[in-house]
């Protein structure tokens, strides 16, 4: 199994998985804490629109997807402010509008729909050095952002009114957080595919949230778990010859079930002792 690592695409895949596994869960923390889960579906559709545009006009698919997602986030954020509507409802609307636009472009420019849809499945082993640099830049960027703006993040996550009283421009800061999150989601989608990106982005954060008592702990634990699931998942996928994304999902799901079980058992014990 280990001799497979001598193949450059496999090795590159491992490096990518390590980078994303240890850093991207921070994006998951932002998504869960800001309660913007529906947005990641919008971003998935954004990738499809980006893919359709890229194929139609011969552009770089990754860059186009990134740009489309950034634009979608800006439009969503501004619409939410102007219309005073939450992200959940608006992202549903934009999701439909985005897929409609992707469909029109696919039909109008005769884009092979199958090629666009492959974006949803991820392509870890098809990645090149550029993908590694891009993932490292995004991963490093989000870690730096979390380190530098930890108190800002804590404030906005804790209570927006308190954050405003502390002098933070909450709307602008939230927009920045969402833009960074959209980059992470778009990048994770290329690696893991849209359908299983939650295994790397969301599950580690959910488990960390159950174990940690504070935000700093949650962030660190999410990254550690994300990295551990990625390494374990990579070798599971090699051993059982299954897609990497599924390999990552297996340890993450097992750990989630164990955590829930242990927590509930502890809770029951605690209640029993109290009684």
């Amino acid at each position, binding site marked *: 199994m280990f001799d497979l690592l001598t193949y450059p695409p496999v090795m590159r895949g491992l490096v990518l998985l390590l980078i994303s596994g240890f850093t991207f869960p921070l994006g998951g923390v932002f998504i869960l804490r800001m309660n913007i889960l529906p947005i990641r579906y919008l971003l998935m559709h954004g990738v499809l629109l980006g893919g359709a545009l890229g194929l139609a006009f011969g552009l770089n698919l990754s860059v186009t997807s990134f740009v489309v997602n950034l634009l979608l986030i800006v439009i969503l954020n501004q619409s939410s402010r102007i219309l005073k509507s939450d992200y959940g409802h608006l992202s549903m609307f934009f999701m439909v509008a985005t897929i409609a636009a992707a469909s029109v472009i696919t039909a109008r420019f005769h884009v092979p729909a199958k090629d666009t849809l492959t974006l949803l499945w991820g392509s870890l082993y098809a990645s090149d050095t550029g993908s590694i640099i891009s993932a490292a830049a995004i991963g490093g960027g989000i870690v730096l952002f979390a380190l530098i703006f930890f*108190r*800002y993040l804590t*404030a906005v996550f*804790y209570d927006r009114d308190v954050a*405003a*009283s502390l*002098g933070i421009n909450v709307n602008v800061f939230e927009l920045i957080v969402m833009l960074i999150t959209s980059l992470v989601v778009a990048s994770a989608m290329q690696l893991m595919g849209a359908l299983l990106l939650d295994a790397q982005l969301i599950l580690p954060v959910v488990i960390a949230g159950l174990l*940690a008592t*504070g*935000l700093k702990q949650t962030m660190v634990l999410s990254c550690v778990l994300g990295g551990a699931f990625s390494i374990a998942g990579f070798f599971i996928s090699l051993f059982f010859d299954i897609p990497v994304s599924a390999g990552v999902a297996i340890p993450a799901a097992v750990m989630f079930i164990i955590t829930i079980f242990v927590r509930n058992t502890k809770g029951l014990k605690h209640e029993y002792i109290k009684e």
Partner: protein
Amino acid sequence: MGKSSNMNNNITKPLPGGVSLQLYNSADETIFESAGKWLYPLFEVEDYLHAMAFKAADIFLHDRIAGRAAASLISRMGFRRCFIDTISVPALEVFERYGVNCGYNQLVDKIECRTEDLITNEMDLDHVYRMLRKRAGRLQGIDLEIKELEAGYDGKKILKGLNIRMRAGDQLVIAGDNGTGKSTMLKTLIGRLQPFSGEIILGGMPQARVKKIPSPVGYVNQSIKQTEFPITAEEVVSLGLLGQKLSKSESEYQIEVSMRRTGCFHLAGRNINTLSGGEKQRVSLARCLAQKAGLILMDEPTSFLDRESKDEFLDVLTHVVRSHMPTILLVSHDHEWVERLGWPVKTLKDGVLCSTC
């Protein structure tokens, strides 16, 4: 000429060189001394009494010199007995007025100090205290002035020409029914809402020109917001340090001091979501102290507190006011609690302060 007839000889001995003030316990042992100048030793005494939870009435104070300002501070702290090496006639009058038994070595007509000239007979102890703390740079509060403020949502005017003026260190309760504009007022003051017109002046400066971070405005809201996501009490208090350039150890010290002052240091590592309403409010207040907020805004802080928690929060709040003297604007419709707080109350009705309702 001196007066020390009923006092212990040990206490009436001149203070050692370099020492300007000493405190003695009931066994005449020295428990505190200061070499500070002007009124600073007395402010140190105030901090010391608070830190040690001592009552001034049980302690004997020996000061090198006291004019009217020092006498006012000593009386306000609650000392019943003291000895002053050199005392002025006005200071002696203050002690007599407030029933402080004072001995002295030398009586002079007046202490030559500009502060003495600023104190008039019309000023009560609180007024003098506030003025002295301000001169000593120990008054945390800032002035707040709201002029003809109009604000609301979606173009709908909720505040209709609101006027409020608070001096640094003042406290004010705004009462009123739901929908009268209390929350709108607070949201405008923290910058979440832009006013349609009017002016907000903080510490003598228009709100737009006040430095955003670190912010001088602290905010304590209702304790209902509950999320599944963990965040420790210490992390919440550390938010107050946003924009303050402190080393790691200074930050830790500041957080500890703030949490101790509101009696929540033991909760530092606990997830805020697991705390009771009263504990959460102590943490919020500690956050404002860490922030060194000159103006603290409180939005219905007792809404979800039980009777016992309300009592505890009242004590903590009273204590914070006494020790830090921030300007506090509190919004509440908990009439009973507000009455026990003893702060001035104004009622907001139809977007304006109502003096007759």
